[in-house]
């Protein structure tokens, strides 16, 4: 089998590429290989699937006829075992060889399981795919207390879903606070309060060192033991300590890999006609100016669009991304972008406005008058205006103090900037 375009991965990055390819080339043969046998769906919505009883039809990312509508040969439930970059060919798990003219690697990330005692033989769970959510739903009727290892984005969203199902939940976080990568101490504290109010217990500053099984069973968990010896009896343990790029099928002789696959501003890898995007790739970060792995859904989609345009013969440049997250855990709106924990005495200017009683917080981090990071908690209206100033590296010296006000808006910008945005089309 041969196709003009082959995409490995049918999630955000793959779908972005399909849409961009079809906007520019209606007829070129196109195949997508997706490991998941299900229809495409929104991975961030698996917590709604788990916690709110939302059905699969309601968490699809595009219409159920998406592949047909875009003339895609979808190979679902199949895995790529080998990629031969020099022969421009991939091999599937059933031995079928597929040749390509242009290839996109959008294989995503796989959950990291720390190597600690017990993870080899005892059933442990992760939470990144629909299959993970389904498996948890199956196990939950017999589980009262669930230990979630990891207090990052996935851990907290899982804890929220489990709390909605009235389960007893404990989050174990190695750092001294939850969401430490994307929030500062004050921001973390506000989210932690919301989590506590929902009845979820958090143990920070500790790690799980052993998982012990029940006496009569090799595979069922009895308790999690922490580094200080604390024993937490539980019925399920879920690991949410991050994802690592899925590069096992990559031929390292042809494709340069750092932590993820290294791509340029056109999402091209070091091998000709092979592109990569999403959690598997290391792409441009407009805050640090360097390339880094940022496992975020919107960036996977945007990177996929750029790759798809270039595969179809256009010249599209990736605008870059950064650590950027909007959260709504337990009803508390939070937006956090860029460098929010600048090193002390490093020339960064930090402006903050914390109001504990109303549970609102604003923080702006600047360097030479340019915003490099922001946190908004509680009141998030107009956040995108600040995000756009950050992304476009606009000097905000003249109006920087207005940004700390909840009423900050376009009218605080300079007239040319304001007119440009208001007249945008």
């Amino acid at each position, binding site marked *: 089998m041969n196709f003009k375009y082959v995409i490995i991965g049918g999630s955000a990055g793959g779908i972005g590429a399909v849409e961009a390819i079809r906007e520019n080339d209606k007829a070129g043969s196109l195949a997508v290989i997706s490991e998941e046998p299900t229809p495409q769906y929104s991975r961030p919505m698996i917590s709604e699937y788990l916690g709110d009883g939302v059905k699969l039809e309601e968490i699809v990312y595009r219409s159920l006829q998406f592949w047909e509508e875009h003339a895609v040969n979808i190979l679902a439930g199949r895995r790529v075992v080998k990629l031969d970059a020099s022969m421009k060919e991939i091999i599937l798990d059933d031995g079928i060889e597929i040749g390509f003219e242009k290839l996109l690697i959008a294989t995503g990330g796989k959950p990291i399981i720390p190597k600690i005692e017990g993870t080899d033989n005892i059933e442990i769970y992760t939470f990144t795919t629909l299959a993970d959510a389904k498996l948890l739903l199956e196990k939950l009727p017999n589980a009262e207390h669930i230990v979630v290892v990891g207090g990052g984005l996935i851990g907290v969203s899982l804890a929220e879903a489990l709390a909605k199902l009235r389960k007893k939940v404990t989050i174990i976080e190695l750092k001294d606070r939850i969401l430490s990568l994307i929030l500062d101490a004050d921001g973390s504290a506000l989210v932690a309060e919301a989590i506590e109010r929902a009845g979820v217990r958090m143990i920070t500053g500790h790690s799980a060192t052993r998982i012990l099984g029940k006496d009569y069973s090799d595979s069922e968990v009895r308790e999690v033991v922490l580094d200080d010896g604390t024993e937490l009896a539980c019925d399920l343990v879920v690991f949410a300590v991050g994802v690592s790029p899925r590069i096992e099928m990559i031929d390292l002789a042809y494709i340069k890999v750092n932590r993820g696959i290294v791509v340029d501003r056109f999402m091209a890898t070091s091998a000709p006609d092979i592109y990569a995007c999403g959690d598997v790739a290391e792409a441009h970060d407009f805050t640090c100016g360097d390339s880094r792995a940022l496992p975020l859904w919107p960036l996977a989609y945007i990177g996929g669009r750029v790759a798809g345009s270039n595969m179809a013969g256009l010249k599209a440049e990736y605008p870059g991304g950064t650590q950027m997250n*909007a959260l709504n855990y337990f009803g508390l709106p939070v937006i956090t972008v860029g460098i929010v924990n600048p090193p002390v005495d490093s020339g960064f200017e930090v402006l903050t406005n914390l109001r504990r009683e109303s549970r609102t917080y604003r923080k702006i981090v600047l360097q030479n008058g340019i915003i490099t990071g922001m946190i908004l908690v509680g009141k998030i209206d107009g956040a995108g205006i600040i995000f756009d100033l950050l992304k476009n590296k606009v000097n905000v010296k003249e109006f920087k103090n207005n940004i700390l006000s909840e009423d900050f808006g376009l009218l605080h910008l300079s007239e040319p900037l304001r007119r440009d945005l208001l007249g945008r089309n």
Partner: protein
Amino acid sequence: MNAPDGGSVLKRIYAREEYCIGCRLCEVHCVTQHSQSKDIVKAHRRGFSAPSRVRVQEQGPLSFAVQCRHCREPACVYSCLSGAMSKDPLTGRVIHDANRCLGCWTCVMVCPVGAIVPDVKTRKITSKCDLCEGLEIPACVQNCPNRSLVFQEAPL
């Protein structure tokens, strides 16, 4: 040149700030038009009304109304986690499907003009200008007493 907004050239709402008197009638008529009753009194009953999708900003003599720009490269569509936000390939309108909205606020984070409104009171989802689907001229434009808001193809 291909029409970048789809088959036809999209008409957009433009705010002429020098004509805006800050009366906020655009907000009143937006809420009314998007209410179930379409009745100006019923639509504004306390606690029942969703926020206006057009918002007037005002400081001293300066005021203007802000609503979705229906961008050619819509950051909200590209960033939407659930797929609720889409750009109609035929009309060029950026459409928000409330039933598929997750209320994650990602679109609020990336909208460069701050035109997406987090509706925390009624449904915990976002809300934005739909150019008044079904009306020839959007309600805010129609009811702007000083013709500060105009609905046209060409930018100002």
